[in-house]
């Protein structure tokens, strides 16, 4: 009855899921170190939930194996795995009060101290006072925390979070992100966190895997993924990117490769360009672009077509002579703002550009509404 | 398919089968279960007890479960038939069926012969009831009461008007929609035959159809509200029924409390019937039932019953016993009819099995159509 206690890294080997004729998860190999905060990011339908469900034992993989440490759990039943899930919809038991919900897992394993531990877990999520309430009497954010407590209290080897914050509104969401991170650090469990809020993934996770159509497209720490996306998909999905189709005009000099875009000479850091490429996508993040000449040697001229104030920053759309608009983000640090219609120069440093294989679509990962 | 035991499978053939007897528990269980028509037994003034039954229990120690669940012969037969056909106990030890029904019960072997040794008082049976076509030699039955089918009406509902003939009953616009007839074919059709100048004890199929036609006409005109069993007494007392074909004693006894209820024995004639004690197959307390019959065949006991039910007593000597209680009652033509009264009373003739189904069908179609 009691789940087998195991520990160590979570390892997926060739894990695959096919539904009828549709492959939701292509053979996936992945190691998630014990105690890490891992985020799985990707557009709707890319297979995030399916992957998590296989780890939880709620879905039978078509092929592949799952290990925690040295123990294979591929064929272990869900209720015998030491893995817990926080569902997007919370899935709190509506007929039990908050405390009973949190005790549930402990009691199933016959834990003598269920109540004590459950109360501690509720303290951890700062809900000690609502222990006797029914879930329906709580706000969304509180329910979310109960769901978290209910899972964490079992000290699982792996805690799966399937868009736990998806239903919360923005402000609450930012608060819960901080709390979630705090709790992970406090209890030191392995968290696998599914989200399609990129900012959430970047703020919280040690490692992010970006999934696309059943495959992991890129894996790494947030800054690496953001600064050096490996594909247009990742470049667009994780934050915004300005992509320019450029032609390589010569060999690298001083660590920089000369390129041209629409007859304008530009440079890219050499280590960002595939050796033999002729044509590439040159990508620059909006915040790396400077309005004015001081951003670096790469310069483009255009006209401001839209300005929007977001408080912390202002976002500009700058129309290029060839029609395309570039996005520029400038922190509102007190410097003056440009106005729509103004002609401006945009500049950036060579090392802030990244180059991507030109064979890809420029708009991959610009999430179409699904 | 039809392989299984269909409701009728066990009663095929035309040889009279004999009713099966059960182990008689009379000596160990001092009980007798008696099903009877409503308002067919004496009741104390406060309506809480039934004096003659109580006296019987006192005298013999036998408890009587008296149930008034006999509303109509066909209905009652339909209720017990599946059990009788299946050779099972009906839960009843004795009931009172009307003459023609007794014939059917005997024919089908559903009733047991009476053990006259247990009914010495059977000797008190009035001569007129002794030899009857439906039970030659009275082997299976003894009459409980007899009576007339006649016209009953509520003067409050007729606006004081008297209802004297069947023709009036079926055509008088003043009664429209407030007339009921009996679902007992023999009573209703019998009265109509008489009204049409025919004799119920000797009529043809054409006569029968003519009578049906007359009723059909009244029905089509909206004259008739319903066909009823003994439940007509309810509506008649309430005034929801203005006039109806009724059983003599019912109206007579009800009118004691409700003077607006009146009764007519039509000039054209009326039918005479009898309801008879029978003991069904598999009855558990046959001997107790026979003791009960014997008890009621005591004229003094029967007199008490008559004083209440106002039907015709089949027990010789009842008139004298009644006279001892109440002179007027002894003169009541309904209880002790004169030869003149009796001469206008006709019995409905026996029907062949084929006639019975055909006539019943015609009548039922009329009644439920």
């Amino acid at each position, binding site marked *: 009855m009691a*789940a087998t206690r195991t520990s160590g890294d979570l390892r997926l080997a060739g894990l695959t899921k096919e539904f009828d004729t549709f492959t939701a998860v292509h053979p996936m190999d992945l190691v998630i170190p014990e105690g890490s905060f891992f985020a799985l990011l990707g557009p709707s339908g890319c297979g995030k939930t399916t992957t998590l469900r296989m780890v939880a034992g709620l879905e039978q993989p078509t092929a592949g194996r799952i290990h925690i440490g040295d123990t294979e759990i591929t064929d272990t039943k869900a209720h015998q795995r030491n893995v817990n899930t926080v569902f997007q919809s919370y899935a709190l038991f509506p*007929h039990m009060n908050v405390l009973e919900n949190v005790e549930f897992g402990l009691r*199933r*394993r016959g834990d003598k101290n269920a109540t004590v531990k459950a109360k501690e877990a509720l303290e951890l999520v700062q809900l000690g006072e609502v222990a006797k309430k029914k879930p329906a009497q709580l706000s969304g954010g509180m329910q979310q925390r109960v769901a978290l407590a209910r899972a964490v209290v*079992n000290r699982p080897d792996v805690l799966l979070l399937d868009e736990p914050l998806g239903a919360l509104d923005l402000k609450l969401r930012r608060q819960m992100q901080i709390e979630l991170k705090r709790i992970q650090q406090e209890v030191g469990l392995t968290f696998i966190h599914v989200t399609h809020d990129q900012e959430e993934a970047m703020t919280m996770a040690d490692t992010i895997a970006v999934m696309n159509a059943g495959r992991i497209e890129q894996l790494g720490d947030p800054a690496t993924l953001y600064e050096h996306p490996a594909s247009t998909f990742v470049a667009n999905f994780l934050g915004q990117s300005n992509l320019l189709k450029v032609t390589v005009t010569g060999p690298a000099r001083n660590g920089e490769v000369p390129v041209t875009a629409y007859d304008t000479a530009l440079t890219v850091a050499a280590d960002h360009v595939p050796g033999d490429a002729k044509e590439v996508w040159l990508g620059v993040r909006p915040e790396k672009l400077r309005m004015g000449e001081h951003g670096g040697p790469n310069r483009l001229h255009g006209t401001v077509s839209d300005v929007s104030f977001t408080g912390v920053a202002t976002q500009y759309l700058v129309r290029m002579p060839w029609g395309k608009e570039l996005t520029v983000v400038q922190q509102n640090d007190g410097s003056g703002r440009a106005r729509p219609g103004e002609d401006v120069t945009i500049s950036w440093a060579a090392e802030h550009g990244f180059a991507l294989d030109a064979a890809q679509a420029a708009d991959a990962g610009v999430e179409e509404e699904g | 398919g039809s392989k299984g035991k269909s409701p009728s499978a066990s009663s095929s053939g035309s040889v009279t089968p004999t009713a099966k007897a059960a182990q008689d528990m009379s000596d160990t269980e001092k009980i007798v279960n008696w099903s009877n028509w409503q308002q067919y037994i004496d009741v104390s003034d406060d309506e809480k007890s039934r004096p003659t039954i109580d006296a019987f229990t006192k005298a013999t120690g036998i408890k009587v479960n008296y149930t008034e669940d006999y509303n109509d012969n066909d209905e009652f037969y339909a209720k017990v038939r599946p*059990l009788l056909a299946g050779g*099972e106990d009906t839960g009843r030890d004795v009931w009172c069926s009307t003459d023609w029904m007794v014939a059917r019960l005997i024919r089908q072997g559903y009733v047991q012969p009476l053990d006259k040794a247990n009914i010495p008082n059977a000797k008190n049976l009035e001569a007129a009831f002794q030899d009857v076509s439906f039970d030659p030699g009275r082997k299976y039955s003894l009459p409980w009461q007899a009576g007339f089918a006649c016209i009953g009406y509520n003067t409050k509902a007729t606006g004081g008007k008297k209802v004297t003939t069947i023709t009036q009953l079926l055509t008088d616009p003043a009664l429209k929609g407030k007339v009921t007839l009996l679902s007992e074919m023999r009573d209703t059709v019998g009265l109509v035959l008489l009204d049409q100048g025919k004799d119920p004890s000797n009529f043809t199929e054409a006569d029968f159809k003519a009578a049906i036609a007359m009723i059909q006409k009244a029905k089509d005109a909206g004259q008739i509200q319903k066909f009823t069993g003994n439940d007509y007494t*309810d509506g008649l007392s309430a005034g929801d029924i203005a006039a109806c074909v009724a059983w003599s004693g019912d109206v007579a006894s009800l009118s004691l409390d409700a003077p607006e209820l009146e009764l007519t024995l039509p000039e054209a004639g009326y039918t005479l019937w009898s309801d008879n004690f029978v003991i069904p197959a598999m009855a558990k307390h046959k001997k107790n039932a026979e003791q009960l019959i014997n008890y009621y065949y005591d004229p003094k006991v029967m007199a008490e019953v008559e004083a209440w039910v106002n039907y015709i007593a089949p027990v010789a000597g009842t008139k004298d016993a009644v006279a001892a209680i109440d002179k007027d009652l002894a003169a009541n033509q309904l209880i002790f009819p004169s030869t003149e009264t009796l001469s206008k009373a006709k019995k409905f003739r026996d029907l062949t099995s084929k006639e019975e189904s055909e006539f019943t069908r015609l009548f039922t179609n009329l009644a439920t159509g």
Partner: protein
Amino acid sequence: MSWIRRHLLAFAALAVLALLLVPNVVVAVFSFNDPVGKFNYNWAKFSTDAWAHPCGSPGICESLGLSLRIGVTASLVATVLGTMVALALGRYQFRGRAATNLLIFVPMATPEVVMGSSLLTLFLMLGIPSGALAILIAHIMFCVSFVVVAVKARVATLDPRLEEAAADLGATPAQTFLRVTLPLAAPGIAAGALLAFSLSFDDYIITNFNASPSSITFPMFVWGAAQRGVPVQVNVIGTVVFLAALLFVIAGQVLSNRRQRAV
């Protein structure tokens, strides 16, 4: 005037409700009558006689007892069977699911006479004698459908993730069923059971087809009594059952409210 117009709906609703309850009021009032003669429809004088002797009319309490026994047994059995069927239908894809759905619907879509008569025919064929057992089986058969419908409606709104959550938290399939599925379906089950009981307790037509003289249910008693003057006790029992049902349901309501409010 505009106040009336604004509350027109409330008036209409309450009028209909009143209409629904008028007979119950009349029944209750006449339970205190001391009728002249045997027909209880003219107010004569006030009396609590019938209340003092609710079994004062022969056969009435036996029939009530039988009806209660059949009602309780039938609704219990039907609830268990119906719940299982509903859970199966609501939770699992299996072959013959559509057929089962249809089969459940048939008894509800069959007029009672047809149902009663075909059951009678069936019982005769199977050699099941008319009587309490036949009635019980018949009642179970038609009650099951109603239970299934009530429970299925509940199960349909049940979030399947709750069961997954239970498994995820280490509950075995049996524990999941007992501690999650069943309690969550409980309101539907209770509604089904209540419906089943009331249908069984109230049924006349199907019962009448399958009854024997020794198995007179309460509605049959009333029907019989209707032919010859209904004893006041019937009013008493009708009123008591009505009030009992009210109390029962209100108590359940209050209890579940209190449980919800408990902090």
